[in-house]
């Protein structure tokens, strides 16, 4: 189960970071921040490889006592870092890989949003990141959608009148 997901810009500042145990958020900030050292090192090590052959998934960055930190880097050098509970043995490399792939897709969706300025913090009013559910990370990562301006939101809500019935997941399948 991912306990923390972070999207980090090319210049190594966080675009998005959210963790499920919100009471100790700072701990995960530190964890993700220090993991960037390893990410940098791994990127510089594979810098020579051909672009199309490059593996985006960086693998395990480092284990700590309670958590494992995994990394992923897009071709535009945006990094994804995921912290998972090390007690969870169900998550193998393949699951982590697919979670990252979903995350990447969601991130691409965010980039496609005309209201989003690349480089801005990704803000979300939908604080329902189900990081505890690995299968859901992908589709529900639409929470990454930036906060809409009020009018847009109003239009959206007007269109999606049965907000409660349809659930939030359906909201973005416009």
């Amino acid at each position, binding site marked *: 189960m991912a306990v923390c997901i972070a999207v980090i810009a090319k210049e190594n500042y*966080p675009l998005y970071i959210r963790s499920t145990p919100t009471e100790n958020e700072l701990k995960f900030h530190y964890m993700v921040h*220090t993991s960037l050292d390893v990410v940098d*090192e791994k990127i510089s090590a594979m810098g020579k490889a051909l672009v199309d052959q490059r593996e985006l998934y960086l693998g395990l960055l480092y284990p700590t006592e309670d958590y494992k930190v995994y990394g992923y880097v897009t071709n535009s050098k945006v990094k994804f870092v995921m912290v998972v509970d090390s007690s969870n043995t169900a998550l193998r490399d393949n699951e982590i890989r697919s979670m990252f792939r979903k995350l990447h897709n969601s991130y691409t969706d965010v980039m496609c949003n005309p209201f989003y300025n690349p480089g801005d913090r990704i803000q979300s009013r939908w604080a329902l990141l189900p990081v505890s559910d690995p299968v859901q990370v992908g589709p529900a990562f639409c929470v990454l959608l930036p906060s809409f301006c009020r009018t847009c939101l109003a239009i959206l809500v007007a269109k999606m009148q049965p907000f409660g019935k349809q659930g939030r997941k359906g909201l973005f399948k416009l």
Partner: protein
Amino acid sequence: MSVPDYMQCAEDHQTLLVVVQPVGIVSEENFFRIYKRICSVSQISVRDSQRVLYIRYRHHYPPENNEWGDFQTHRKVVGLITITDCFSAKDWPQTFEKFHVQKEIYGSTLYDSRLFVFGLQGEIVEQPRTDVAFYPNYEDCQTVEKRIEDFIESLFIVLESKRLDRATDKSGDKIPLLCVPFEKKDFVGLDTDSRHYKKRCQGRMRKHVGDLCLQAGMLQDSLVHYHMSVELLRSVNDFLWLGAALEGLCSASVIYHYPGGTGGKSGARRFQGSALPAEAANRHRPGAQEVLIDPGALTTNGINPDTSTEIGRAKNCLSPEDIIDKYKEAISYYSKYKNAGVIELEACIKAVRVLAIQKRSMEASEFLQNAVYINLRQLSEEEKIQRYSVLSELYELIGFHRKSAFFKRVAAMQCVAPSIAEPGWRACYKLLLETLPGYSLSLDPKDFSRGTHRGWAAVQMRLLHELVYASRRMGNPALSVRHLSFLLQTMLDFLSDQEKKDVTQSLENYTSKCPGTMEPIALPGGLTLPPVPFTKLPIVRHVKLLNLPASLRPHKMKSLLGQNVSTKSPFIYSPIIAHNRGEERNKKIDFQWVQGDVCEVQLMVYNPMPFELRVENMGLLTSGVEFESLPAALSLPAESGLYPVTLVGVPQTTGTITVNGYHTTVFGVFSDCLLDNLPGIKTSGSTVEVIPALPRLQISTSLPRSAHSLQPSSGDEISTNVSVQLYNGESQQLIIKLENIGMEPLEKLEVTSKVLTTKEKLYGDFLSWKLEETLAQFPLQPGKVATFTINIKVKLDFSCQENLLQDLSDDGISVSGFPLSSPFRQVVRPRVEGKPVNPPESNKAGDYSHVKVSVKYSCFFLS
């Protein structure tokens, strides 16, 4: 063995450990002066051979670490140098006794020792002794270095004899079993005759000989011995010593591969720094020969008889990759033993240093990660700090700046852990400052002014809070104020409303003791904290320089300059000039300010805070002209919209004035905010010409002011309305008082009048004045009053027109509104206006006769 030496590096394996200690009362200063001189003798070439000895000096060494000397000989204290003060001969025996006591501590391992006595003179000094050197004082001791060299040579002789003794030990039947302190009880009652036991003894001894060879400067030999030892120990599963043998192998290989050293302490440590590895190998060949003096000794011990082939093979020395593999193996063996935690930790550190040189950061970080988890016994707080600092340094070494900062911060927090009786806030603060680059945080607000802040806000905010707290506990409120202002200024967007309140609350508390200034604060470490102007409290969006009010606006008099207004260029048109003017227009505003007059600048500000913001002492920062700024205080409501604020000041000299910015005092912090540094500010130019002071005239009349203005002010002129009611034939004097309220003498006065009515003929010319009388009082000095009298005489001519009466009666009824007004009453309402310009045409004539009396005044400058 409980105290790890975090500074160890692989090449320490070839050093001899010498402890230098004071005996009795020796001042720290004197001791370290001598200690420094002793330390300068860190390597010497042994005479008659090409071998080099390396010495490691310590002024403190825990004796329990000494007990591990058999395990790794570089941990063994082989030399002791004591330094003592002794001023009289009768203290001498006592001092000498102390020296012996000191010797006892490391007695079991010492090869030799020396006593340096300072201050003693007399016959004792005359007796030549090898183990004691006398010096009259701490200045006069030139031979210290020579003495140390002799001492080291004597150490070498012992070392060499031990080495040869062990290496050629023919009494093969009984090799003593070397063991580490915690093993001793395990071997009680073991069958000493078994093959297994013998092999173990041989392997350990071989490893020991390898250590000695390495110390004696015989690298190749040591490699051979280590290799043999590894094979022996592997066969008997003696893991701890196998680990040590492997580590020895690594150390020797590191020394071979990296003559520059891995500790980074002294680059030119070995062989004047220039010896190539191949050369170094050759130099060691003589040593390698020596071991072959008696090859029989080796065979009798059941070791590979043909060592000569092994010496020749390159595989003796590990390749750089192998070094790391072997280190890994050694560490994994060490980790089987709880009591060898220190050894394991030190091995990790050594490996990391090697990897750092090899630039293999990822693997190095794995070793460090392992080192973090090595659980030593309960560490004291000081040791914890040391451990975290070293981890931080090592991470820095391999280029992991963030991780390094993390551990440094942990070390800083450890300095002030609640369990420490006297928290080291100063040390904590210093360490925290060192973490700043790791968190990509600079304390210069200028780095943040461009656009939005991009960084690890949550982490950085935490760090800033800690800096504030540490500096406060250090008793330096100025620093806390600076850091807190920085926090507020740069992290404003990330603070929650409650946090904003808390931060400002504490900032106000601090500034009540120590107001924030604009001075840079220099820290002892050479860092300076630049001032933090609050450009966001309040946020200024728009700056506009205002023209003077219409009454005070200067007007150029054409007559004065006459035809003299000519361009400086002889050309009628020049594109260059036009271009210049266009450029100037960007910055310069096309109105003027007047010296001595109050000038205004309007700022549009807003308050981003969720509470009322009190801004005090808000004034302008200008340059170019002496400017007396009149500060204002304002209070902005919570999260206000744009709010206009007018800042005023008086230019004291003439020239071109540039408004550079403004200063404020918010929460007790003074800030100078320069417009250039403000992001997203709109300004319509900030440079204005200040012209010399002009006179000011105040006009008052004897007649009461009219309640309603008959003519709207057109903006260009200043008017005062007075009204008077007169009967036909009646006359009245209107006295106009002209007071010079400026600082300049008034020199010229012009008066014109105009009756604004279509019925001019009807009323005739009823105003008359004598200007000469008034002009006689000119030039009017400042503060002086001149009077100007206008006679109003009403004489209506009823004879000319029929409908006059009708008109008048209409007037009377419709306008005056007096119920008692008779048709024969004439209402005249003259209007006197003091104005500096020609009156414009007004069509609002009609019922009354409006009279405009224009007063023009001016002064001349003889410039």
